């Protein structure tokens, strides 16, 4: 299928390459009989063509524009093994319950991509086509990354297992909190929050995405006070503690400088924002791997392109790219908290972070089997509008290999930050103990929390303070599928 077709009559080849404009589907970008090879990268796009544009032609155009094509025939194609390099759209299905949009499956030969480069992968797949005029909207829903390509990446610098070994914490979710208010605290006051939260029982505290080096707090000051807080809390509890020092900065040179300073102070973890870009993320992942550092990724900015179903890039694709790129933590949703997160879609992200083999599951938005081939596991982080009273739901939905981050739910406790941290830790431990004993968390959860609160006043107060807080809004990003009818093989 991919070998150069030498059997076609000369006349046919000549007409294919005569100057002028030709439909993409006739240029080889639509091949309904094509069977993807095990080494092909496959992308599935949600395509919404302009009125009057045929879905097959639109899909073929996406295949063309994301691989070798331009708007007109070029004879220079004939200097290349162009049949191999052409992306091939091989399947187009209507999106269930969404007239006018289609799922287009496109296969790309492995030779189209530079090994170990998210920049190159993304430039190819999303670099050009999203502004293509014949389409109203376009969304990259999922990608099948062949093992042959997965193995060209380092993957997470540390991974879930080694992170747990370094922290000496097993069998329960890790607990964190983002320091609040996120802007305005001086370094000295900021460190106070870190100390109180860690001493009270959290494993980690965290800089927020936009804490860098502002007039109210220079980054070096923050790092110094935070590490004092971490070490003091560690000595006070006999337990390993950490704080994600955000090293996001304007240039790579600045980021390396901040990372080196964090390392010199003995920090076990540093943090970057998604907005620094794929190349910077991969650079920091390589630095983290060289320096025994856990690398936390805050997905700042992702909702600008992940949230709407019709246009952009699904977060499941970003998750896959980030596991390849080599971060150790990624914010992947809470379901019950304040930020977007359909339960099934979120389950799909968590599986992509933590499993070695993720089978196709259309209900979870997973279009393809994905084999990670022993790539280290990426720790998902649940953060944003969660509190101790939801502990049973969180553990039921998210499992134990996750960082649960209670920012407001720690710092906003009526009896102070230590009390807030203790409430969360007691709720967590009580729930894990009960789960392991075989109790039904969803039904018995509130009772388990109430029992635990009998020996823990801070938990009792937390449950009273936040008992009615829920964020029940319908999700904008949910999988569109019909069991058996479409998309399933």
């Amino acid at each position, binding site marked *: 299928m991919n070998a150069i077709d030498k059997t076609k009559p000369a006349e046919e080849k000549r007409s294919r390459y005569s100057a002028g404009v030709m439909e993409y589907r006739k240029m080889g970008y639509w091949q309904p009989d094509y069977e993807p090879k095990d080494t092909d990268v496959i992308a599935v796009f949600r395509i919404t063509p302009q009125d009057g544009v045929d879905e097959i032609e639109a899909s073929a155009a996406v295949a063309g524009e994301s691989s070798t094509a331009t708007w007109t025939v070029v004879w220079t194609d004939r200097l290349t093994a162009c049949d191999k390099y052409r992306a091939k759209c091989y399947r187009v299905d209507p999106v269930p319950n969404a007239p006018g949009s289609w799922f287009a499956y496109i296969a790309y030969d492995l030779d189209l991509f530079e090994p170990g480069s998210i920049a190159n992968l993304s430039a190819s797949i999303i670099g050009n086509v999203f502004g293509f005029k014949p389409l109203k909207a376009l969304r990259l829903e999922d990608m099948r990354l062949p093992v042959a390509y997965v193995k060209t990446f380092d993957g997470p610098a540390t991974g879930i297992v080694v992170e747990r070994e370094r922290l000496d914490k097993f069998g329960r979710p890790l607990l964190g909190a983002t320091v609040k208010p996120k802007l305005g605290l001086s370094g000295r006051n900021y460190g106070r929050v870190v100390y109180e939260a860690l001493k009270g029982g959290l494993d980690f505290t965290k800089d927020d995405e936009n804490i860098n080096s502002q007039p109210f707090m220079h980054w070096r000051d923050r790092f110094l006070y935070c590490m004092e807080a971490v070490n003091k809390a*560690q000595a006070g509890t006999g337990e390993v503690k950490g704080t994600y020092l955000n090293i996001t900065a304007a240039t790579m040179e600045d980021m390396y400088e901040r990372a080196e300073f964090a390392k010199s102070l*003995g920090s076990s973890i540093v943090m970057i924002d998604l907005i620094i870009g794929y190349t910077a993320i991969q650079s920091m992942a390589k630095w983290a791997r060289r320096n025994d550092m856990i690398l936390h990724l805050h997905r700042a900015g992702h909702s600008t392109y992940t949230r709407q179903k019709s246009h952009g890039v699904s977060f499941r694709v970003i998750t896959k790219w980030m596991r390849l790129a080599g971060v150790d933590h990624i914010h992947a949703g809470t379901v019950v908290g304040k930020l977007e997160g359909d339960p099934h879609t979120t389950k799909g992200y968590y599986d992509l972070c933590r499993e070695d083999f993720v089978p196709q599951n259309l209900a979870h938005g997973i279009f393809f089997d994905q084999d990670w081939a022993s790539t280290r596991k990426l720790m998902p982080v649940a953060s944003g509008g969660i509190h101790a009273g939801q502990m049973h739901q969180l553990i039921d939905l998210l499992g134990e290999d996750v960082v649960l981050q209670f920012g407001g739910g720690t710092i906003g406790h009526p009896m102070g930050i230590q009390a807030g941290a203790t409430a969360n830790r007691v709720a967590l431990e009580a729930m894990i*103990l009960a789960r392991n004993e075989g109790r039904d968390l969803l039904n018995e959860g509130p009772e388990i929390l109430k029992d635990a609160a009998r020996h823990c006043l801070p938990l009792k107060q937390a449950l009273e303070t936040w008992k009615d807080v829920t964020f029940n809004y319908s999700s904008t990003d949910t999988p569109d599928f019909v069991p058996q009818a479409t998309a399933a093989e």
Partner: protein
Amino acid sequence: MRLTQGAFSFLPDLTDEQITRQVQYCIDKGWAVNIEFTDDPHPRNTYWELWGQPMFDVPDAAGVMFELNECRKVYGGRQYIRLSAFDATHTWESLRLSFITDRPAEEPGFALERQEIDGRSIRYTTRAYAANRPEGARY
């Protein structure tokens, strides 16, 4: 102070009945349960002393509880004892659960020593008060 290593240190000390249920959970998962003890609970002290071998083939929790009680007869009240569960599944091959079952009667805790170095940087050392005394005579 109360050492908060392990999965259940923020709860009241587990009863033997509660420990048994956790052990059974681990055995049902196919994990090997391990008994360890130490009188050096420094947060970076990875290797506590092993009480025998990890128990790979124990059919139920009673066997583990018997060994835990044997360990307690020697070290109970004087050292920390923890149970951990090891999962040999490919891509994990590490611990799945770890929790303290026994503590010394007194837990004096840790001193934080600060060495001022260049700039405003400080080199920190965490030292257990009990570790000043020789091994075996600390608690």
